[in-house]
């Protein structure tokens, strides 16, 4: 049972690949520039948290099972950026502003949730549509927007006593909280159950609709938080979140979370986020063209992905060469939608 120490069960858990790749890129940077190794990590740690926050939300959504994905995060981030800055400057309180950003995220997620649960719209489409609505609101807010981000919040985000970004520490705590949420709470267990087999979870008495709704709202809230912080850190703009859509999905999966749902690895998100941030730094440092930059990014993602391999999709040549997992700690299977019979490997 999952009362034992959860998360990655062995050092070769899928989450290590993100960290390994990040470490590799860091070494390359160090070799090329020959200086500032510690500062590189410190700066990467001050950028990574933003990606980690959305990544955690995306991870929860992906864990809810096949087909669950939140493509509205980009628009939510942009919208929450404006909302939080506007509210913060109206009330004079950065905290209220951040809360308002989170609230905006929750509202957009509520639209997706209604569409997903009430209208049975597939999540990718529901969140796409909710995102389109959100970006319209963003555009009309952006027209004639006058407020400026709170200076105190910005200073707090840039705080790095002894080179350790305070934000990174805070988000590390948030990551631990999310991990605890998944393991120690009824909601978390229900989410993981729903992700493995929605029908079985429903028959086991889990309120599936409530769990799914909660998950999208959480993702919206986390994207809203990202937007609020990013707007203070950078500046509110209509395309503040654009880059976070694909990256948030990528970090979740490189982080070892099962894309077919039912297994979440919150730590993994950090490894993958650091990998992405450091890779951007490396590419800019070497001055490669965008072409090389993209080739490298894609190539490395594919390399890490194919090297690490996935769950057992039972079949293919690979399964002949792979050792069977020890039954007591069997690595979870990638469950295809039809789970069939006797020879689905454990």
């Amino acid at each position, binding site marked *: 049972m999952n*009362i034992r120490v959860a998360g990655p069960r062995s050092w070769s858990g899928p989450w290590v690949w993100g960290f390994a790749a990040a470490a590799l890129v860091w070494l390359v940077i160090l070799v090329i520039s020959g200086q500032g190794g510690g500062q590189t990590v410190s700066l990467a740690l001050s950028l990574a948290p933003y990606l980690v926050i959305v990544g955690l939300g995306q991870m929860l959504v992906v864990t809810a099972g096949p087909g669950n994905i939140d493509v509205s995060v980009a628009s939510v981030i942009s919208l929450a950026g404006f909302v939080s800055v506007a509210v913060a400057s109206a009330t004079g309180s950065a905290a209220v502003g951040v809360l308002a950003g989170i609230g905006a995220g929750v509202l957009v997620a509520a639209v997706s949730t209604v569409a997903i649960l009430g209208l049975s719209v597939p999540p990718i489409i529901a969140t796409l549509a909710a995102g389109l609505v959100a970006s319209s609101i963003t555009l009309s807010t952006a027209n004639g927007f006058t407020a400026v981000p709170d200076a105190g919040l910005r200073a707090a985000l840039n705080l790095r006593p002894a080179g350790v970004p305070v934000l990174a520490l805070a988000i590390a705590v948030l990551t631990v909280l999310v991990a605890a949420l998944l393991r*120690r709470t*009824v909601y978390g267990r229900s989410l993981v159950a729903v992700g*493995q087999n929605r029908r079985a979870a429903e028959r086991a008495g889990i309120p599936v609709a409530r769990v799914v709704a909660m998950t999208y709202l959480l993702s919206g809230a986390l994207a809203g938080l990202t937007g609020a912080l990013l707007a203070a850190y950078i500046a509110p703009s209509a395309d503040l979140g654009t880059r976070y859509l694909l990256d948030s999905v990528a970090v979740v999966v490189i982080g070892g979370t099962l894309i077919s749902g039912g297994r979440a690895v919150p730590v993994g998100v950090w490894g993958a986020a650091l990998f992405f941030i450091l890779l951007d730094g490396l590419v800019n440092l070497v001055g490669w063209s965008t072409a090389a930059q993209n080739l490298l990014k894609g190539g490395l993602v594919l390399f890490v992905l194919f090297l690490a391999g996935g769950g057992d999709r039972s079949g293919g040549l690979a399964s002949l060469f792979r050792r069977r997992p020890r039954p007591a700690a069997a690595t979870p299977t990638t469950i295809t939608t039809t789970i069939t019979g006797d*020879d689905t490997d454990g």
Partner: protein
Amino acid sequence: MHVDNLPAGGAAPPGTDTGPAGPPPVVTARGVTKAYGRTRALAGVDLAVRAGEVLGLVGHNGAGKSTLMRVLAGLEPCDTGTVLVHGRQASAGDFRTVRMAYQETSLCPDLTVAENMWVSSRHCLPRVRWRRAASDAVRRRLDEMFPGHGVSPRDRVEDLSLSRRQMVEIARACLVDRLDLLILDEPTESLGPDAARSLYAYVRRLTEAGTAVLLISHRIREVLSVADRVAVLRDGAVTAERPASGLTEPDVLGLMGAHVAAPPTFGAPTAAGTIARDTVAELLGATGPGLREVTLRVGKGEVVGLAGLAGQGQQEVLERLWRPVRRDTTVGVSRAYVPGDRQRSGVLPLWSVGDNLIVTALRGIARRGLRRPAEERAVVADWVKRLSIRGGAEAGITELSGGNQQKVIVARAFASPAGLVLLDDPFRGVDVHTKTDLYGLIRQEAAKGRSVVWYSSENAEMAHCDRVYVFRAGRVVAELTGEEISEERIIGVSFAEKGEDD
């Protein structure tokens, strides 16, 4: 093409000469072993199936029957030992004449019946216009095997009921230009009695034509009535092989595993007192898809059976009780559900036995949404012990055999504090020993004041109920209590007026 040159009926030429040595073996296993991780599924099996015989294979859940079949069908290599086909060391191609109908149907749910035929029998279909050929072939075969099957080759498998899917699965195993050995792994678990009878009639015809048939079933009486020989598999090895004639059910049960407790008569159902009980759930004139004017009542501590032929509205009743959204249904207590289709609606495949077992009870144990691991562990340990679930709490659920998985799912429901437990034909494919344990469990829990509503396709099981509603065409056609509940009576009521209705 040659799909239909399989001899049918009496017009078949006899098999090879049946001298005193008996017909030659079609497929032979010699010292076959197979291990999955630390689970030894097969521990040295020697078994020969001869042309023209029906070999019944029995054994408790997890004995290794399905694994052995996969090895005999050439689907999985064995670790040591050999499999001979027609006396020769078998290569991949030799297995073409060995066909298997799987325990869990292995059809593609999104494909039509005809397309599924192409998948498994493409070697005997023409390259062009195969769709037409496959449709004709499967229709003819189904007509032959299951008259009145109601399946069209153009139907998608996912739209078919469980029993029709099973018919298609069996028919597709038989659809081949040459068939030496047909393996049927628990074929009748989701078939109605009519279909089962037609199937066995067809099996007889096949064997007369010289095909060997290997039949796995937990319905010992069925095996005894159909098989020529019975082999008993116990813990991965064949422990007995006997001619079926002269064997009785207790004999076989004895061979399968030591002590068979006296026929299950735990806490004999009480006929009296049904009126006095408080009502915990009620349907009043429930009407809707699949249901017509159904009125039924469940009392506290009562075991209520839903009987009748498969698909007559019993599952709809369970559905109503599980999600009482309409006004004609009232349920006063919390509920738990035990699904019969464990692959689709039972197991949570990434989790261990313990995680699977506790998931329903979790909510009750937790305080303010936070889990309490120590309490959970205690509950899990208790149930693993109580039902002697093989592998223990830490084993992955998918490593367990079907029967043991089912135990976990039953335990899941009873480990929760639910006042009403709904059983949706949960004992399909569960061996006798396990069943006996679970029947006892149900009676014990009922005695503690829990109510149980139990749909079963096996009428004999209804003897464990306090009260039984017999369904036909979405209506309750009889309510039986106490002594009235008997297999004969249920069958009698289920089939009455049948000619009129159908």
